[in-house]
């Protein structure tokens, strides 16, 4: 009897898993359908599938901000598993890299930095980062995540989410609502009524240096018959935390813009551009390029219980995501309808981390506030720093945001002159390239041909093999050159090439 029960259970869970996969495929298909019907309407023929190599590099970068190693690249390219793309997506969504990358993106929006003008202080910065890390590690539903962020009370060192109310030097209901409107509703302003729900919040110092307790003054008048949107007005019960009523409204299923803003952000992280662009300007003057698509994603996200990872997965498994960036005659001018992948520049952190991991030479990061200075562990990647105050010149030049504004505009979409000069001729980069430890066994193996070295460098920097033509041409550009010269010049050239500098 027990056996039968167990089998039945297995069967049941098997069916559930099957259904789950079918559901996911359906989601990805829904997305593609929305994209394709719009394209058909406009008479645009979409591009085909990208190569495995491109899929690998693109997915690593958008999910983890890292490039794959030579070994991972080879294994993926050689694998004959028909499901290898879906498996890669699953592997990366469960990796620490994905969590770090999410913490970085939220750290940008929440302006997490220890020093002035935002002054969360190192202790608060660490607490806030750790809390975010747990949220993404546990894949906490987005609505629950935001509710906790908005409705916590306590010490900024212990109850990390309260730091949302400390990121501004000026702490008033208006500045709280400015941040909430921009980050969660993609709006540059908010209705005055919102502020009524935040009148109770105040911060009280303690004897611990820079520690503050977020407290509520329960005697503040309760909001009455406030209309925020949807069907009903809201009246709060006296002497309760009025933020809870606001958060319930904000995260409710009826407030579709709340979900839409997040799915649009995720879409832009994965696709390089939002359906609404800029992603934090939802307004009547700035409409989505494909409203049905945004609507479809919003519905999927809400009906799936605000499951963040599943939202990522359904986009990543879509045909739309896996298109090549190469265009055809009908879709060349399309920049907004996703008929082909739109190349977007690597972030400063991605470039810096890629060069560090490829060459095996990592930078040393140190927190300079407060004294004594604290060094980060060796091998820390720049996306793991978690503090806008901790930096090195390279990251500043390459465009890491200072975390003084929450808007997406803090990350430039184009390269600038300083960055191009730096990438071409920086000593800092040159030293790393020259001390590339991974190359030592290859260079000192007499059997290695120059073509093989070129191929290895392509695998390192571009995550693909060099074509025969590429190998031949590059070797011919450096006749009589010593292998170390080839390594240096080809590495510098590769890291300045379009293929390296763009997610494509």
């Amino acid at each position, binding site marked *: 009897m027990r056996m039968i029960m167990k089998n039945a259970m297995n069967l049941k869970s098997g069916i559930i898993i099957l259904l789950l996969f079918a559901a996911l495929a359906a989601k990805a298909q829904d997305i593609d359908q929305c994209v394709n019907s719009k394209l058909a309407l406009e008479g645009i023929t979409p591009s085909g599938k990208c190569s495995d*190599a*491109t899929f690998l590099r693109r997915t690593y970068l958008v999910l983890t901000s890292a490039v794959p190693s030579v070994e991972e690249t080879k294994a993926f390219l050689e694998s004959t598993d028909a499901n290898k793309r879906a498996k890669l997506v699953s592997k990366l969504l469960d990796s620490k890299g994905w969590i770090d990358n999410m913490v970085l993106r939220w750290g940008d929006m929440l302006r997490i930095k220890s*020093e*002035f*003008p*935002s002054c969360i202080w190192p202790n608060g910065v660490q607490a806030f980062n750790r809390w975010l890390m747990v949220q993404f590690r546990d894949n906490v539903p987005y609505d629950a995540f935001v509710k906790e962020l908005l409705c916590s009370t306590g010490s900024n060192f212990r109850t990390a989410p309260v730091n949302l109310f400390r990121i*501004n*030097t*000026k702490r008033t209901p208006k*500045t709280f609502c400015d941040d909430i409107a*921009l980050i969660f509703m993609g709006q*540059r302003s908010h209705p005055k009524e919102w502020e009524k729900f935040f009148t109770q919040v105040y911060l009280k110092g303690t004897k611990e240096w820079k520690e503050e307790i977020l407290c509520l003054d329960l005697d503040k008048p309760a909001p009455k018959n406030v209309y925020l949107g949807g069907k009903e007005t809201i009246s709060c019960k006296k002497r309760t935390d009025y933020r809870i009523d606001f958060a319930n409204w904000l995260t409710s299923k009826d407030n579709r813009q709340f979900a839409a803003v997040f799915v649009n952000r995720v879409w832009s992280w994965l696709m390089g551009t939002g359906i609404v662009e*800029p992603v*934090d*300007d939802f*307004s009547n*003057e700035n409409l989505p390029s494909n409203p049905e698509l945004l609507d479809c994603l919003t519905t999927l996200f809400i009906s799936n219980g605000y499951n963040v990872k599943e939202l990522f997965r359904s986009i990543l498994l879509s045909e739309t995501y896996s298109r090549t960036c190469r265009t055809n005659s009908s879709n060349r001018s399309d920049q907004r309808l996703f008929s082909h992948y739109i*190349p977007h*520049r690597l972030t400063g952190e991605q470039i810096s981390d890629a060069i560090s991991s490829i060459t095996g030479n990592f930078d040393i990061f140190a927190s*300079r506030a407060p004294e004594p200075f604290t060094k980060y562990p060796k091998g820390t990647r720049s996306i793991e720093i978690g503090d806008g105050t901790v930096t090195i*010149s390279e990251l*500043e030049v390459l*465009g*890491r945001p*200072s975390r*003084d*504004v929450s*808007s997406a*505009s803090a990350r*430039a979409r*184009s*390269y*600038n*002159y*300083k960055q*191009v*000069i*730096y990438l*071409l*001729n*920086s*000593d800092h980069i*040159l030293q790393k390239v020259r001390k590339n430890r991974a190359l030592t066994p290859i260079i000192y193996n007499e059997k290695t041909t120059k073509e093989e070295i070129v191929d290895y460098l392509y695998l390192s920097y*571009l995550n693909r093999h060099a*074509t025969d*033509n*590429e190998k031949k*041409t*590059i070797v011919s*550009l450096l006749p009589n050159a010593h292998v170390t010269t080839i390594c240096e*010049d*080809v590495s510098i*050239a590769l890291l*300045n*090439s*379009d*293929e390296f*500098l*763009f997610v*494509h």
Partner: protein
Amino acid sequence: MMFLYGTVQAQERYRHQEVPQAKAKAVIYIYLDGGSAQTDTFDPKPEAGRNYFGKYPNPIKTTLPGVMFGQRLRHLATLTDKFSVIRTMTNNGNNAHETSHYITLTGDMTNGGIVYPSFCSMISYLKEEECKSRLFPYITLVEASTRFNEAGFLPNQYKPYDTGGNPNDKVFNVDGIFSEKVSTKRIAGRKEMIDKLNSLSEEMERIDETDKLHSLQNDAVELLTGEAKDVFNLSKEDEKTRNRYGRTTFGQSCLAARRLIQEGVIAVCVRYRGWDTHKEHFARMDERLDDLDCGLSALIEDLDRLGLLKTTIIICGGEFGRTPRISWEPPWNGGRGHYGKTYSYVVAGGGLKGGQVIGKTDKTGENVVERPVYPCDLIATVYTLMGIDPKGEILHPTAGYIPLLPSYGNPKTSAGLLTELF
């Protein structure tokens, strides 16, 4: 409300009523990082007693009748017709490094929740099109601030370019631009290879963004293989000139600043660190004050000789001053703390009158007696000289148009332009 920030056209970047006639084309900021002691430099108090003047009891006469300077500022004392001194800078007594640093660089004392850019970043943003240099509009020698990211709400590219390196070394190594490690021939060869790699790649095709990148790469190679980068080659200056500035990192930074201005750079900040002397203040001041005296006087004289002082504003000072009353007791052993209530600044050039002393402090140098000058007043004066309306408004990425100098004009944080010097 839709606009792509960073691509905002110059004429939309700020709106203003009256654009003052520009007298100055560039600004050099000698930033005394940590805060310098006003009583040891430009506002000596020989009658206040040993607890105030400490090791420096004998201020020296200057070429201005009745005006004394600290005893180590020998060169500057003979040059007073070329610059003026503000003795009553004040930030209302803010003594925290981070806050004062921010206030000094931005003029913003509103605590209004918006992070402003430093005034040099602001100038480089608003005057970008007037920058004739092949380099960048705003450069810091030799390191940027570690306390405050100067771009504020502006796009990241308006941060200063941080040279790194040391101009007092045999080769002033400016990362990315000037080094002897890679020959120009090799740089050109690499560029050729980059172009070749791009043309062979089948993964990507040309798009607007890659076209933009390639055009920048062409400009960069032109800079790196051309002569403009030689602005950092201080060996092009004769020995006499180099010695006049002082063979110190600071002195040679001042010389490099002059060369950058000649090259057409709009804003240069010489970040002179080491003024935060809580402990054993006087043991460190002798050398430091000599270096300051030498470098700053050389810069003023040299710019004047070259006819550039008329169009180049020089300002010199830190985030605050230092406590006039000395802490003799351990662990300070003759130290001076932070002091934001009143402190001194030097201003010169750019159409400002020399030979003036603005403001008056009390007998001990602890309080303003006459004519306070707030950071935003000084910045407003710089803006006016540069042809920027200090009452103008600037476009913020999400908040629309906001005041360029929010504290300016508020009687609690502003006492007006330095019209005494116009």
